[in-house]
């Protein structure tokens, strides 16, 4: 077995060119183009974020890369191999979104199963499994069935599964979705650790903050098309951010005055008003509201989600107040 001789010279770990996927939802129904000539590439050793709103085509792209879906046209390569081949997957790890595993297995059996499937030799299998259990902090739960695992534990054992054969590149689909803050942090730390080990990470996400925190480069996909590919720093300022303030007990004339100034950034719901202002103007606004005799019920920094970015930059149809 030539373990990795054939892959080391490749610097572009993933190459996608003009990838197109049409779906036919049912007999006689019209084809729907879910991926439209998308192209991007992933360099060795980076954490690559593939971001976009739900339904944009992130998971479809990832499934094409994992050989679960056949592309209609275009090219997709991992480590220089066409994704329809199987042998190169010895060097590829994958964690799907909301993974569901064979829950009749214990954590240890589960990892052993994937180790055997990946062609790991018996001699180093056990040591590798123990090391992974330590890595994801599941040594205690190793002999419990996966049925009894929490969502965070499943996500971690899933990650261990994707690493069992020591792959060069790991593909993660929404690795932090559905987790509590602690779980998110654990996964985040694990991903960062992978980079220090020299692995390449490809990560699907629709949560900007995660991407901002982890990724070296991103590609943004919306409605099946790549909208952006490049560094994270370059793309973040596109987002509109600010702070949401909610207040009650505002006199009608005071509200009308505010509305004249803020326009679409103010929404009135009976007694209650919702306002969004840039971070720098929060103090000023609060003082003004209090002076008007209003009661401030909530002040919250607004996180620019990718959805909002797409709504503002791509669709240009965003309406704050209707």
């Amino acid at each position: 077995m030539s373990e990795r001789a054939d892959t080391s010279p490749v610097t572009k770990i993933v190459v996608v060119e003009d990838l197109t996927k049409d779906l036919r939802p049912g007999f006689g129904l019209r084809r729907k183009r879910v991926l439209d000539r998308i192209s991007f590439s992933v360099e060795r050793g980076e954490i690559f974020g593939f971001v976009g709103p739900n339904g944009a085509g992130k998971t479809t792209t990832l499934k094409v890369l994992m050989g679960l879906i056949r592309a209609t046209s275009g090219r997709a390569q991992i480590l220089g191999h066409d994704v329809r081949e199987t042998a190169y997957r010895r060097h590829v790890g994958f964690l799907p979104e909301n993974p569901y595993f064979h829950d009749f297995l214990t954590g240890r059996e589960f990892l052993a199963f994937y180790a055997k499937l990946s062609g790991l030799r018996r001699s180093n299998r056990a040591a590798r499994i123990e090391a992974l259990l330590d890595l994801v902090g599941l040594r205690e739960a190793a002999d419990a069935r996966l049925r009894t695992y929490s969502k965070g534990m499943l996500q971690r054992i899933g990650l261990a599964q994707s690493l069992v054969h020591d792959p060069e590149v790991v593909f993660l689909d929404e690795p932090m979705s559905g987790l509590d803050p602690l779980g998110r942090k654990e996964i985040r730390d694990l991903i960062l650790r992978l980079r220090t080990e020299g692995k390449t990470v490809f990560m699907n996400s629709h949560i900007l903050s995660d991407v901002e925190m982890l990724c070296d480069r991103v590609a943004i996909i919306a409605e099946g098309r790549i909208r952006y590919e490049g560094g994270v720093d370059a793309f973040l300022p596109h987002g509109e951010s600010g702070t949401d303030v909610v207040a009650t007990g505002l006199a009608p004339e005071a509200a009308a005055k505010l509305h004249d100034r803020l326009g679409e950034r103010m929404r009135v719901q009976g007694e209650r008003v919702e306002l969004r202002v840039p971070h720098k103007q929060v103090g000023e606004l609060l003082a003004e509201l209090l002076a008007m005799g209003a009661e401030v019920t909530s002040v919250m920094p607004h996180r620019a989600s990718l959805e909002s970015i797409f709504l503002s930059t791509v669709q240009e149809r965003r309406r704050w107040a209707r």
Partner: protein
Amino acid sequence: MGALIRIYTLAGNTLREVIRNRILYVLLCFAIVLIATGVVLSALSYVEQERILQDVGLGSIRLFGTVIAIFLGVGVLHKEVDRRTIYTILSKPISRSEFVLGKYLGLTATIWLQLLIMSAAFALISWLAHAPLGTGHAAALLLSGLEMSLMVAVATLFSAFTTPMLASFFTAGIWVVGHLTRDLRQLASHSDVSAVRELAVWIHRLLPDLESFNVSIQAVHGLPIEGSEVTLPIAYGIGYASLVLILAIVLFERRDFR
């Protein structure tokens, strides 16, 4: 070599999944109870009680074996796809054909294991009732296991491209028709219309001839069973199941997992 290890690993995991599934034990217990029902039923007849005991025993084994084969077979691929466990498996260096073969062999091993348990219950009850047991019974059980394995292959085929509901419907349909094709061919041979005769012959050729796996009457009555009545069905069953599996693999390889 690597492929064999992967198929073996998948088969072993499938076997483990079924063994750890409680529903199956319920089914198996029910089957054994039904085998034992032969004791009660045979008591209703004042003569030939051993014969009725064994008719009921072999009948229950074949019926339950087939039900379990279809029940497990239609879920085999679908469950992996539906619960998305297949995503991580196929992300490993495993081809889809290895996946289908591994799942099939694992399930077939389960079927044979169950057949073995039911056969043991049958033998025990026969022994307690002083009913004769011989190579004929072994041949009947062997061939019924082969029929079940063939039904798992058919279920796998349907499971490769349709929902479990439809797959069980189709598989059960194949099973019913598979037991009729001989009669159909014979009935049609009296037809005046040559197209009808031809059609019946082709149906018999294309669909599995499941009656060829049925020697239970001969076994119970201690009638002679020719060597070719066992070896030819074995060859036929293995050949047919392999063809069905190849078709299943071809269909499964073209499939998108959305």
